[in-house]
């Protein structure tokens, strides 16, 4: 860790620190981490003594006491505060999504010890549809699928999630969802994303899957009306079946409250051994062991867009995808062994 880095912060931030004072010699490498903080405060005080006009320059100068990473992060935060950040037309904010990585990496490595297989079945470019089983009340399964692709795929990409529209009526949740790549689950949005050659993740079980009882775990629910197959057929996008094992145990749902669900307008209100009894603590997921498997892609482009109107074919494909996911779920359950250790 060095503090002699006035102009080694990269081209973007160069020039921002030209007001730096002569190099300090109080701090050398090996000083405990609060060294920079003390230097920062000392310089800030010097700046304040210099009168109000010297403040901005002093703040910038004082920042030079910190390591490059800290200064870059501060500078980036200030840029964001000035509105200099990118969101695509769907509202996806890659920087925001990346900023969550440390917490998610911890969940992936230590908490759930996720083992991923078949990740190269996800096309690295072009349109494709991930279809997965859904469980665990909160969308941790989608988060981990996305992270598995970020970490293990040779060509990492961010999938776009189709999210239950209820989420977009909620404060904070709505913003977080769109910033990490969630869009309202509707055929129109899904088609448009595929036309844009994006990777779209869908959970055809929907709320039925996420909100099912613990006793029903790993039994796939009905796959809606096969709408996802129609969309994939129209766009000629391959369908990649995904099985997630472990998400069923994170919040073992033992009951639900219709009254509370109606009161907050939610599709269901889960009751688990810890929620709502322990309040916010009850939302900490249990550390089950996870496996994620990406299956062989099922091609749809050879069938042509007209095939989307063929009900029999749509149902058949939908069942095929469901059976494949169910098979992979059972297989991975057996391979996983014990749920928690």
């Amino acid at each position: 860790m060095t503090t002699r880095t006035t102009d080694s912060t990269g081209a973007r931030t160069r020039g921002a620190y030209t007001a730096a004072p002569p190099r300090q010699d109080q701090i050398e490498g090996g000083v405990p981490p609060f060294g920079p903080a003390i230097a920062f405060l000392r310089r800030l005080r010097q700046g304040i003594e210099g009168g109000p006009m010297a403040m901005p320059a002093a703040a910038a100068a004082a920042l030079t006491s910190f390591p490059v990473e800290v200064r870059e992060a501060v500078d980036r935060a200030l840029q964001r505060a000035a509105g200099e950040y990118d969101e695509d037309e769907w509202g996806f904010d890659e920087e925001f999504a990346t900023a969550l990585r440390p917490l998610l990496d911890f969940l992936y490595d230590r908490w759930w010890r996720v083992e991923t297989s078949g990740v190269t079945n996800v096309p690295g470019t072009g349109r494709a549809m991930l279809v997965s089983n859904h469980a665990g009340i909160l969308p941790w399964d989608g988060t981990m699928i996305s992270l598995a692709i970020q970490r293990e795929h040779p060509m990492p990409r961010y999938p776009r999630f189709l999210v239950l529209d209820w989420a977009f009526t909620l404060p904070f949740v709505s913003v977080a969802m769109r910033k990490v790549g969630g869009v309202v689950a509707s055929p129109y949005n899904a088609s448009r994303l595929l036309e844009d050659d994006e990777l779209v993740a869908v959970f055809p079980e929907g709320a039925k899957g996420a909100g099912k009882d613990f006793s029903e775990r790993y039994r796939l629910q009905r796959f809606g009306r096969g709408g996802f197959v129609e969309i994939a057929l129209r766009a000629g996008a391959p369908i990649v079946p995904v099985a997630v094992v472990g998400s069923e145990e994170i919040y073992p749902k033992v009951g639900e409250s219709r009254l509370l669900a109606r009161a907050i307008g939610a599709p269901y209100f889960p009751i688990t051994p810890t929620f709502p009894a322990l309040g916010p603590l009850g939302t900490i997921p249990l550390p089950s062991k996870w496996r994620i498997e990406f299956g062989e892609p099922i091609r749809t482009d050879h069938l042509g867009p007209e095939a989307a109107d063929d009900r029999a074919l749509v149902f058949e494909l939908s069942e095929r995808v469901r059976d494949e996911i169910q098979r992979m779920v059972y297989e991975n359950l057996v391979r996983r062994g014990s749920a928690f250790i």
Partner: protein
Amino acid sequence: VSGRRVLITGVSTRLGTELARRLERDPSVEYVAGLDVRPPRARLERTEFIDADIRNPIIGRLIPQTEVDTVVHNQIVRQPGGGVAPRAMHDINVIGTLQLLAACEQTPTIRAVVVRGSAGIYGAEPAAPQFYTEEMARLYPLRTRFQRDVGEIENYFEGYSRRHPEVVCTMLRYQPSIGPGTDSQVTRYLSAPVIPTFLGFDPRLQFVHESDGIEALLAAIRNPVRGAVNVAAPGTIGLTKMVRLAGKVSVPIPAGAFVPALNTGRRIGMPAISPDFRRLLRFGRAVDVTRLIDEVGYMPRYDATEAIEDYVEHQQGRRLIPSIRHLAVGV
């Protein structure tokens, strides 16, 4: 072949006057007439000014005399305020449109009607498609008074269009305008000292730059297409990003307290926010502009972010709170 003969309603609005000026300079336009109750904003050279209220049946006698082939309906009031009461706004929008169409019925020379309508008809809904295409106008109930007005206006034009297959009716659905010369609810909102937002919401918004707004109208006059066409800057911008680019500080207010807070704010001189704009600030709205680009043949020059940036650039002098970054690192 003789040139086009164009009538503009609402010629004394900023956009109406600018449109008349542009048409005057176009050699293929033989005659320009402008209808309004106030004189135009600037001196127009060869525009014939018709001093009449669009709500008055007298226009049924005046318009046929002009023998125009194109009518541009630009007299749709988008927000209360600016001297127009909510009640008058409804009258101008709905009764005015009815009277205009009655006058058009008696003008057999008409071949094209271009309406500067509003994307407000789509409303702002949490579960909405992320980009509305033109056929998605009635997915949700029309919730606000202005939405219902626009709904009625569109119904009247659809009826007129059915009765007169020889006339091409273009319904341009504009997203809110923004730009250095625009004075609208959006610009007043952005120039307030602090900006009220909904706590926990950061909607995707879309605007149309004022210069694109006028060019799109000109393009639609030159090349009228049947039916509705969305007019907006391509792409979207988040409200938070927009406020930050404008160098403003937002004040997040919980949804339940938003209306009372605004009412209090109005007493101390904060700008008013209409119910439509309020919903927009919570749920946002974006439209698909493929039809404008492919069929009308106009490619907007500003995308969503550029439109805001251009507006902000011209506002720098009036900035109250300097940017935090500017204070801290002097760039």
